[in-house]
């Protein structure tokens, strides 16, 4: 049996690199100014000049999709960094020290976890003014509990292994054991969590945009483009199709990467049965 491990990983990472290049170098790839309206050419179907057609104001959809990648990736990555940092810190503290700290942190995670993320995000953004920093804060602020639970579990498992006890016995401080011995071993799990946090954030951002509560026009985002397109789906199939496809592709790329990483980290999901059977 040929091991096909890693196809997902390579495909996912290549896609992410490809999308990042588009986002960073948007001006090079976009053949039109994403804000430039053209009263003559509204709702034109895709063709040689406008690859993805034009929108209701005659703006080039392809160029807007390219620029939209900036917002999506920026929000996705910033929100991920926030939730990973908070989640790792709280999860590690809860898992390592246990007791009251653990109880406190876990109840806090429970409270945030029971809220539907999208509803909470909608509420917060509706109450305050929608702005990019608020969107990041809200998505990151609702995404950390999953990470915290994961890291807590990993740390609890690791701290009971002998090497942690050995390190304590050799006189290492709690801080050193946690930072030098335990967290690096949980790093794999944290990286997987990070690759799952990015697409979740991108999806929530797009959803907020779709409901009109994300980053506001005229900045083109995939979510607010879909919102505009919604009223034209009878007449212009390309209007909603391409921004949505961009969301799908980006989210899919991260999910593929996450899946690939998970397979690497956990051989059980790949060739586990063979391995186990031969152990005996």
């Amino acid at each position, binding site marked *: *049996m040929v*091991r096909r491990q890693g196809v997902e990983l390579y495909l996912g990472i290549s896609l992410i690199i490809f999308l990042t290049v588009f986002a960073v170098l948007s001006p090079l790839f976009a053949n039109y100014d994403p804000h430039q309206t053209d009263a003559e050419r509204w709702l034109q179907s895709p063709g040689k000049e406008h690859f993805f057609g034009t929108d209701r104001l005659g703006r080039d959809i392809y160029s807007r999709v390219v620029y939209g990648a900036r917002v999506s990736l920026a929000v996705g990555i910033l929100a991920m960094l926030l939730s990973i940092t908070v989640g790792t810190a709280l999860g590690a503290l809860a898992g390592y020290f246990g007791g009251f700290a653990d109880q406190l942190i876990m109840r806090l995670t429970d409270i945030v976890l029971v809220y539907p993320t999208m509803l909470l995000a909608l509420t917060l953004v509706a109450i305050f003014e929608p702005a990019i920093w608020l969107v990041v804060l809200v998505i990151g602020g609702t995404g950390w509990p999953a990470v915290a639970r994961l890291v807590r579990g990993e740390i609890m498992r690791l701290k009971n292994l002998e090497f942690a006890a050995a390190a304590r016995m050799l006189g290492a401080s709690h801080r050193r054991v946690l930072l030098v011995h335990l967290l690096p071993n949980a790093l794999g799990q944290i990286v997987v969590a990070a690759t799952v946090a990015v697409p979740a954030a991108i999806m929530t951002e797009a959803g907020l945009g779709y409901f009109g509560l994300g980053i506001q026009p005229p900045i083109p985002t995939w979510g607010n483009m879909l919102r505009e397109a919604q009223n034209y789906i009878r007449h212009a199939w390309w209007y909603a199709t391409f921004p949505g496809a961009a969301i799908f592709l980006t989210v899919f790329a991260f999910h593929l990467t996450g899946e690939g990483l998970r397979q690497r980290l956990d051989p059980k999901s790949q*060739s586990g*049965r*063979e391995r186990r*059977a*031969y152990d*005996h």
Partner: protein
Amino acid sequence: MLTITDLSVAFPASCVQALSEVSFFVAPGETVGIVGESGSGKSMTALAIAGLLPPVAKASGEIRFWGRRFVIGVSSDSDWRAIRGVELGVVFQDPSIGLNPLLSVGSQVSEVLRFHLRKSKLEAEKETVRLFNLLGLYPAKVRMRQFPHQLSGGMKQRVMLAAAICCRPRLLIADEPTTALDVSVQAQILCLLKELTAAADTALLLISHDLGVIAQLAERVLVLCAGQLVEEAAVAELFSRPAHPYTRFLLASVPRLDLPLALKVPAIEDNDQLLSGCGFASRCPERVSKCLSNPPLIRLSHGRKVRCHNRR
């Protein structure tokens, strides 16, 4: 009763030849032991007889069991299902992970009776009580209602034994049945194995790396080394006059009070499981150049075989 011909098992993905052309037989009611180090292919033999080789294994060979014929790789899972549990019982090494944690231990024995012998719930439970009493699981009625996590390792192994023999199989395969247990419990389980198989005239294929266990129970012994059958002998002969250097090495590895621990044990090397040549060649103190070609299995006397160029 059980005849195995040219059993070979390989794992192409990891380039391992687990068994190569192993042939042997077990007579009705006989107790045959299989010894060898870990990785010598003992457990694979057990799995192959039960038709439970992992799907990634590439295997060939023929097994005849009480008039039935199984060709490995050809016979389907449902062919094997006809003997598993009914005519062939299997007990594995670690009883702590061998029982379904969600079912009471009594129901895990009685479900075998109900499944194979079509007994009613009441009948099956009655029979289970009898078996539990027979196997020393007292008080049977209370033990039956308990769940695996409430029992000790030795008790769990008794439950496993009960499930394996409840349909009165003709052959019981015990794969390292005592390895995971405390020493004090080991002896009890071995005694039970001996009594049960003797009483029901069940043949026993006992697989162990522990020569002590083999010596206590087996009548005839097969020695496996790197997937090859290297020696076969009656138990007394094997211990008094081992013919293969590997057997001598195994016997010398047993720590003894009356002798100093003189023998340096060569560890298994990476090139140990070469596809050709004697499996023990790389570690053999008596190796000659011929050993790089595979020696044939030679019959020395009645029921006595050895696979070595350099036999004395």
